[in-house]
């Protein structure tokens, strides 16, 4: 049974991280990666509150782990997926009953209430802010990471593909390893940008 008021203690959370790590200490990376995947899962299913639902899923898994002491038979990622599926179905059922989350309400109301001229100004301001934040976040990256991400995503179609293979050869990396590295830097940059834009 799900206890809605349940919150993980430090030791429960530690146990949960250890379980997700499957014996190799990732320093919390696996947790963050699983959360990212769950947010993606809920978002692809058009749930506005994808962050909330991902956290709800992880909470339930942690709670189950605390109750049972261990979860065997399925990999942590697969178990998280099964719980996520149930959380999604519950979410759909609640939406059918008209119980939308605060996040859902806020988004639809905001869109309805902002008048058009203000929206134009807001769009312009947001764009300027985005450019400023990107400059700032690129400035925070290590020089080699900045070079890599700008070069990796530069150019169009064939030019881009050729550029990537030259970059991989120059760095002594396989295309796959280069792609993983570029994605990691881009994720970091996107996160920095999101934070910067929220800060104002």
């Amino acid at each position, binding site marked *: *049974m*799900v206890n809605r008021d349940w919150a993980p203690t430090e030791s429960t959370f530690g146990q949960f991280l250890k379980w997700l790590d499957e014996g190799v200490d990732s320093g919390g990376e696996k947790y963050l*990666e*699983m959360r990212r*995947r*769950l*947010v*993606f*899962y809920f*978002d*692809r299913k*058009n749930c*506005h509150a994808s962050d909330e639902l991902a956290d709800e899923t992880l909470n*339930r898994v942690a709670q189950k782990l605390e109750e049972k002491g261990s979860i*065997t*038979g*399925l*990999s942590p*990622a*697969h178990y*998280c*997926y*099964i719980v996520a599926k149930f959380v999604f*179905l*519950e979410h*759909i*059922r609640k*939406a*059918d009953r008209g119980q939308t989350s605060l996040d859902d309400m806020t988004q639809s109301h905001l*869109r309805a209430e902002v008048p*058009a001229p203000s*929206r*134009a100004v807001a*769009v*312009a301001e947001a764009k300027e802010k*985005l*450019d*400023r934040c*990107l*400059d*700032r976040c*690129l*400035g925070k990256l290590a*020089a080699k990471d*900045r070079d890599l991400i*700008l*070069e990796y*995503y*530069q150019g*169009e*179609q064939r030019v881009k593909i050729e550029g990537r293979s030259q970059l991989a050869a120059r760095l002594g990396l396989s295309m796959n390893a280069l*792609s*993983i590295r*570029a*994605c990691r830097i*881009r*994720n970091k*940059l*996107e996160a920095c*940008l999101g934070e910067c834009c929220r800060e104002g």
Partner: protein
Amino acid sequence: MSSQDQQTYDDRFLTQYLLGALPLDEAERLDELCVADDELATRLIAVENDLVDAYVRGELPGEDFKHFQSFYLSSAKRREKVEFATALLEFEKRSVAVPAADSQPGQEVVVGAVTLRVKHEGKPAVARKTSASRLTQWGFAFAAAMMLCAGYLLVENLRLRRQMDEAQLQHSAADQRERQLQKELNSERSANAESVKKIERLQQSQASAEEPKTVSLLLRPPTRGLAKLPTSSIPSGTDLAIVLLELESNEFPSYRASLEDPATGQNLWSSGSLQVWSLGRKKVVTVSFPAHLLKQQNYLIALTGQPARGAPESIANYPFRAVLK
């Protein structure tokens, strides 16, 4: 992920998934893999980044463009990715535009708050801003500022008009996306209605329980000799039975399983398309079905392989006994 899966899920297939253009069963299979499969989850990020970049560069072909507008842009989170890609593209344009014709390799030029170093190939690379380069840049900046002032009012006027047009376009696109989102939600809801009914049936017997209770069982490949029949104990109130079928070899891109009553030959449940997972060194296929289908008796799970072309092939029958507790 096996090499067969990699072939099945090429970049084009993953792009279709991201655009919401796959049939529901295929999309659900990928939903699962995107959470549970490390390799696919990583590949998907790369494919998504390239897709979003292609959109902002205007490189998407007609159908993909339509799906992108109607499905991908329906999420605020995904729109943030588009905004990021747009900003990155604009940065690239600024960085290409800044080095003048007489720029020498190694010379530094400023784009926003970062300094780009002109490379031998004539493309800029990014480097940290240094105080020395700032001093030389002040001279250029002053001259540039004088010229910019003259054209400022004209450009500003044009910019504001363009922004108004863009805002109106975005507004109508947002309305269209909202309608599309509603349509998607309705379709998603009806597709899940059956599953929701199943859950509600389960919940009638345990009014306050919201967490699915599961029982799992690993069935090894059937052997020819006499072997003890594997037994699964099903506690009362169990919602879902999860059965892992170990394979002797993985020769098909996908599989299907069905639960049968060996006494009557009746088919009690059939799976959708199933993928192979690695469990340590073992290759397994996971099936999950409502536990209320099981009574205290023997059962058979019949596994068939689905070749890329041609008819399905029977792989093995996995017998087990259910014991209700």
